[in-house]
């Protein structure tokens, strides 16, 4: 099985590549990303491709002729790129790579990374949407992922293959560069105790397992993957022994600016999550993919458990 993994330079992409490498059914792996892989890859072939370099991306995909496409090349604003770069990069990768994959004769399935942000959090929106809920994103990141899903569905229709959109809850973990993770680790965390609604999170390892499971199952349609349970922003801050600082209305602008000064910029979808909440019904995802994600409370605890980050001295010459 030839597997194309976009976004291999990200924490998720590299981990998914390692999981694919360990799977004997996978014969060849091609990775594409703007950044190099974050850990050692063993039998994957990696190509660094700028999102705007459509010709190179199309050539690589057509030459490889993938059987499964794992499209993880989604750039989260303020994760590793600026919001504008993230938006443009996500669009460009989706169109060029999924478009090229649609014309590959061996293609059997497409799996795309999406997120709960596609449901949006407008007034009156369902608190815990399932996969049948309307896609009405209310943040730029949600719009980007909704566009990726749309492109993937069009590519799937053109190629006649199933498309699985894995709508993951905000991914947080000890080592993943996530805006909400960085923000919650600040010593003082601005929260809205009057209006805040609960949100669910997903551990990075569970997200990777979900993508790999989706690659083999060939489910046609979206799947929510969510850690059970939910927490509010205030709860998360208290769990990490941070000081929750109450902020209301326009005060969020100041809070966001202060957070940015401390190296934890707060993009609109992260602020939306803190105020309007973000959960979903993940029962179908658990049933189809056969995974049991860690509870949200446990994900928050792991976010603050610094002791799990292993620092290896360079002189030891040991790979962590």
């Amino acid at each position: 099985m030839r597997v194309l993994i976009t976004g291999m330079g990200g924490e998720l992409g590299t981990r998914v590549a390692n999981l694919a490498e360990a799977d004997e059914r996978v014969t060849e792996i091609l990775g594409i990303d703007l950044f190099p892989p974050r850990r050692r890859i063993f039998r994957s072939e990696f190509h660094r491709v700028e999102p705007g370099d459509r010709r190179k991306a199309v050539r690589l995909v057509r030459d490889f002729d993938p059987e499964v496409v794992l499209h993880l090349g989604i750039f989260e604003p303020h994760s590793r790129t600026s919001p504008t770069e993230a938006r443009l990069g996500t669009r460009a990768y989706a169109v060029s790579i999924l478009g090229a994959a649609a014309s590959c004769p061996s293609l059997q399935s497409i799996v795309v990374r999406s997120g709960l942000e596609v449901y949006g959090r407008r007034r009156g929106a369902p608190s815990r949407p399932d996969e049948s809920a309307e896609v009405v994103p209310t943040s730029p990141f949600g719009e980007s992922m909704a566009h990726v899903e749309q492109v993937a569905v069009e590519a799937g229709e053109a190629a006649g293959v199933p498309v699985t959109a894995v709508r993951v809850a905000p991914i947080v973990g000890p080592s993943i560069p996530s805006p909400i993770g960085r923000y919650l680790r600040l010593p003082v965390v601005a929260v809205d105790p009057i209006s805040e609604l609960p949100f669910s999170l997903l551990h990075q390892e569970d997200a990777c397992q979900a993508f790999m499971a989706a690659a083999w199952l060939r489910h046609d349609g979206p799947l929510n993957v969510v850690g059970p349970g939910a927490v509010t922003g205030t709860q998360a801050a208290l769990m990490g022994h941070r000081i929750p600082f109450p902020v209301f209305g326009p005060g969020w602008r100041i809070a966001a600016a202060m957070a940015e000064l401390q190296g934890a910029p707060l993009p609109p979808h992260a602020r939306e999550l803190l105020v309007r909440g973000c959960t979903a019904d993940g029962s179908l995802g658990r049933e189809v993919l056969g995974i049991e994600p860690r509870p949200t409370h446990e994900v928050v605890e792991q976010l603050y458990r610094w002791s799990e980050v292993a620092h290896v001295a360079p002189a030891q010459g040991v790979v962590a």
Partner: protein
Amino acid sequence: MTLDAIRRGVPGATSAAHLGRRLRGRNEIDEWGLDPELVSFADPVLALRWDIEVRGAERLPSVGGAVLVFNRRFGLSEPWVLARGVRQATGRFVRTVGVPDIAGLGPFLRRFGGVLDRTDEIAGLLRAGQLVGLATERDVRSRERVGTLEVQRLDAALATGSPVVPVALVGRELGRQWTIVVGDPVHPRASAGPLAALELAEDVRQADQALLEDALPSSWWF
């Protein structure tokens, strides 16, 4: 002797333990915003406001989702009375439909079990095995009449095949004494259709009306 046993013997120790958990962020809040500990904190205050008698609580399912259709006059006390009464009698929370999605009020009411009035929201709750409280239309003119029940409001029950339980609430808006009478569950037919939905709504409303008439005191005005 365990620490819990010592706590039970000391007045206020359990509340202090709960408060300590809240200050460490360890309290539970579910995906819809219900905060069970906050509800138990508010219990003494709610007990001062309402004295509730529940009849027929054994008819409520002990597990799984169900829609409780209840009558209301002005609709201020009824959702609180139903939720508190059912929780006292069965230990289960009732998720009352009809919370406005506005800052401040909406999240506050959600902490006590309020949910949005949306079919998909109710269906999600029923699939998750929750009890959902659904009020009939207000009928401010008479205490003896159950308001209308729109057919579409039972769509979620039909979609999930959950039982619908008629519940009559008897009491005065400014009074303390309330009575909850739970009727026999009505199960939606397997072959759902427009007529099945209409019949279900009619059956439930009639059952609710009969319960209310039986439960009302013979000389209400005195």
